[in-house]
């Protein structure tokens, strides 16, 4: 009975926002060239101390870029950047932009991606842990 209680309590203590670790990166990318900023927003944070701003840059071709500025995030497993039609994650509404392999401190980062499937309805940038179905934060591009 004691074993059962301990097992139950130990499982109950595992929360996605306590899963962190790994090195933090500090990146200083320059503002994307030959592209124009078409939207920007500040992150609303839900996990991993995420903070910063997100912007969408578009050029004359199909190449787009999402730029994070003053970006902070504790490292997590299987974390991706998505551009989405809604502030919540769903496969139907989100386009994968990049994977975040580490934590970040005060970083300016550019993520280049192809605009295939992108529409004017994609107004939200999500930082999402796919493995644990956990939204770290989102920014609405205005």
């Amino acid at each position, binding site marked *: *009975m004691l074993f*059962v209680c301990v*097992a*139950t309590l130990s*499982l*109950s203590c*595992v*929360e*996605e926002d306590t899963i962190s670790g790994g090195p933090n990166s500090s990146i200083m990318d320059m503002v994307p060239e030959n592209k124009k900023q078409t939207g920007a927003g500040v992150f609303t944070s*839900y996990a991993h101390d995420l903070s910063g701003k997100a912007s969408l840059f578009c050029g004359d071709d199909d190449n787009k870029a999402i730029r994070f500025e003053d970006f902070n995030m504790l490292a997590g497993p299987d974390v991706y950047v998505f551009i989405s039609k*809604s*502030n*919540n*994650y*769903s*496969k*139907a*509404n989100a386009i994968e932009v990049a994977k975040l392999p580490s934590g970040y401190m005060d970083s300016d980062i550019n993520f280049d991606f192809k605009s295939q499937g992108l529409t004017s309805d994609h107004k939200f940038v999500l930082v999402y842990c796919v493995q*644990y*179905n*956990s*939204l770290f934060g*989102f920014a609405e591009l205005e």
Partner: protein
Amino acid sequence: MIFMRNLILLILFLPGCPLLMYAQSSETKRYRDQHYFDLAVAGASERFSTALSWSHLHGIGKKKQKLQIGYGLRFTTFVAGNKYYTTAPAEYTSDVQGIGTIFSETIEENIDTITTATTLTFSLNLALYIQYTLTPKIDVGCNIDVIGFSFGPTKTFNVISSVYDAGQAPVQRASPTAFNLLLTSDNDIGSLNSEFYARYKFNSKFSVRVGYAFLFSEYETEDSLSFDEGRIVNDRYRYKASMGFVGVTFKPF
């Protein structure tokens, strides 16, 4: 899974409830009244439960009383990792309400999903039991929770529906639905446990059970969530867990 659960209901609620039919023989009274204290542990991929129960069974018939029916109390703890909780109310999941829900198909376009890293629910329910003695050493039986209450820590869930209406937070807080009630299929409310089992009796006091457990775990969001431009507004979400289990029983009388 749903079929097995409904089969338990059918068996327990056969016409002419046998609970009212046992003879008042003093010679067999002691044989008839069975008190079981049981601890069962169930598990499968990323889900685990424990069930501590007391049950009181009555033998049916004048002589051998191989068939026993009774009631009991069960305290279930359920832990799950990374599971999808989906729309619970039958008014959304089924185009047929009431007992007809048992036979109806799920309306997939009405199913919305929330998820979190770990869930933990505690449930205390009154349960119904039925058991048949196959041989002096072996019983088979089933049981199902009927009514009770649940509690547990509030968790943060992520909404992962593609038709989640704008203007709502993508992350919501939810707690185990407080009230549990067996109504049939998706009409059920709250967290309910049920089992099919076989029992092997080592002696008159100790036995072991093995079998299949089917458990509903339900959470209620603090705010009702709106989907598909307000067509669905719902705050109850359910996960259905199928697990194998092992239990040990002590029968003191």
